[in-house]
């Protein structure tokens, strides 16, 4: 549970009805998880609150994860819901230091969804799985009435074998660890927003959706010590740093100028009035590594196209649960969890 501070009031029980902000990754979403789900399902594995659960099977350790995909529009520049589902699942396994063994996929289809579009999605699942070196080993289909879905939703489960010698989860983060990010941030969210709003730009922003397990497994195979990994999906890098700082009870210090944001992504965010640090990525992760392993980690990451832009953005230090960011003018401020989703501004 979070420490009590001025910024984090004791979670109030949620009531009323589900709102979109409950899925937004901010404070409101956290409270739903804490008061509805974590309370109900509490157990030592879930309570580690990592992207994938680690189960022991004799000497071997299995990683397991599950994820739902409801992106609208289902096709966006740089991918579609099918490739996204495979990448998201493989990546969650990788965050526990696991090599993917198999993925299941359940397709929830809306009446009226063109079969040709479904084929496109399925083909994308197949290609993404092949490229990631994993098979779709089980599946399911359901159809809902027209108007009850956005064409297609996908739910996946992934199972992998943990190859990391030590557990990789928030409890391993130590003061002094360096914080690395695997590339420029906010690209997926910016791509989806421009596709959704029909924004016509000079250049097309492609989603960063990609499987990132190859560089992670390579780091582990070459003996780089990794304390914790997390992919910067919902709520972006700012949100996951807040989650990890809270769960690991450490402080985080980063420099705004060190976080890579591509010019076109920065422009789109400026236009919508959004902060790219809170915008979702689907092929970027944050790695916490001891100072002694920073150079080795960056060397491995930069060998892979998907993490060629890896760089250091900060260090674990400071007050537990707090993210301090040095801004562009050299003035420090807090990088807090947002309440709900970022909403586009008036002017």
């Amino acid at each position, binding site marked *: 549970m979070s420490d009590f501070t001025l910024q984090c009031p004791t979670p109030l029980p949620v009531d009323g009805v589900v709102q979109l902000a409950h899925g937004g990754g901010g404070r409101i979403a956290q409270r739903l998880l804490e008061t509805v789900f974590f309370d109900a399902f509490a157990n030592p594995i879930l309570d580690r609150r990592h992207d994938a659960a680690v189960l022991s099977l004799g000497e071997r350790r299995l990683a397991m994860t599950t994820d739902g995909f409801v992106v609208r529009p289902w096709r966006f520049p740089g991918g579609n819901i099918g490739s996204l589902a495979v990448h998201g699942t493989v990546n969650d396994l990788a965050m526990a230091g696991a090599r993917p063994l198999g993925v299941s996929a359940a397709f929830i289809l809306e009446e009226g969804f063109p079969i040709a579009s479904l084929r496109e999605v399925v083909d994308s699942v197949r290609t993404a799985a092949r490229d990631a070196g994993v098979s779709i080993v089980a599946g399911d289909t359901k159809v809902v009435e027209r108007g009850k879905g956005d064409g297609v939703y996908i739910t996946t489960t992934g199972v992998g074998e943990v190859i990391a010698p030590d557990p990789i989860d928030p409890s391993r983060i130590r003061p002094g660890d360096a914080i690395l990010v695997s590339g420029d941030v906010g690209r997926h969210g910016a791509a989806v927003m421009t596709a959704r*709003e029909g924004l016509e730009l000079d250049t097309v922003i492609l989603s960063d959706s990609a499987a990132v397990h190859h560089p992670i497994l390579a780091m582990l195979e070459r003996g780089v010590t990794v304390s914790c990994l997390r992919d910067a999906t919902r709520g972006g890098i700012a949100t996951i740093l807040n989650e990890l700082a809270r769960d690991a009870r450490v402080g985080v210090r980063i420099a705004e100028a060190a976080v890579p944001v591509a010019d076109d992504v920065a422009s789109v965010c400026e236009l919508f009035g959004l902060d790219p640090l809170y915008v979702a990525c689907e092929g970027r992760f944050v790695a916490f590594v001891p100072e002694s392993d920073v150079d080795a980690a960056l060397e491995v990451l930069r060998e892979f196209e998907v993490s060629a832009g890896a760089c250091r953005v900060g260090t674990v230090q400071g007050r537990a649960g707090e993210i301090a960011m040095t801004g562009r003018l050299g003035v420090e401020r807090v990088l807090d969890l947002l309440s709900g989703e970022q909403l586009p501004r008036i002017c």
Partner: protein
Amino acid sequence: MRFLDEYRDADLARRYADAIARTVTRPWTLMEICGGQTHAIVRFGIDRLLPKEIELVHGPGCPVCVTPIARIDQAIELASRPGHVLCSFGDMLRVPGSHRDLLRAKAEGADVRIVYSPLDAVRLAEAEPARRITFFAVGFETTAPANALAVRTAADRGLSNFTILVAHVLVPPAIEAILGSPGNRVQGFLAAGHVCTVMGVEEYRPLAAKYRVPIVVTGFEPADILQGVLMCVKQLEEGRAEVENPYARAVRTGGNAAARALVDEVFEVAERDWRGLGPIPESGLRLTPRFRSFDAETRYELGHIVAVESGECRSAEVLQGRLKPHECPAFGRRCNPENPLGAPMVSSEGACAAYYRYRPSGASA
């Protein structure tokens, strides 16, 4: 990004801050009008670069914050009626009404849609003739031209299912209300650059002369704001009270003539209620008689909906620069973005939201 990165340059900001420090000889209190400027100040820590003699107080220029609570209730009521759709900019959705906000109403079945332009709402009205589409027309002079264009477009296309719920306010009457109030401390203003892009700078000259205050048209990036502060401080130190426009890359003296003509065709000046401040004469816009049929409040008989604001929320003082957000006893305790007492805590231009997000422990410079 061209036209942006150069104004966020740390060296340039330092040079302006140094120049301000060299110029100032005694304490001055300046107000930035626009909530966008407030957010930039708190986000970049601009106030922390200034000498201790300069105090920046935050102005009322957050359209979301000053929209009366009754208007929010009317919007919620309208969105909840069968066959009605309320289109709004995202900013308005978390603003607390008397009992709930638009996001909550949406989750409970009201048809609320986020749009990026009022013309999107006009297009929706055209595409769905059986539904009644209302655009929540909130804003200062900046958004008035686009909203005027939406109404005229709907009129040209004969769209009788399109209306706007008007909550338009004007900057100069707000400045005058602040300057004319007994407890006023503000000695100079950073005027809102975007508003002046539309309206030009002439309407500020009588105010500067009458109240002997410098008014400097100011942009939104760190270098712009520091330049505005420098020019304001120079005037004060030299005993001048003029309107100056260093934001000439966006603001022409006469503003945007075409946009102003459009606003004048569709809107007329009227008394408006300001959330937290109450009614101010000639401080807002309403539709002209020719376009009155597009007014949602009269068309859908919403005038009976009135509301009382929370006594605990001190946003009126915050909006007039008399109270810093973190000085409010409710800040961060009873009032936070999930459970806001007032609009400034949830608007992306609200001063309380800026402090909560970037400076939750409260301390200013």
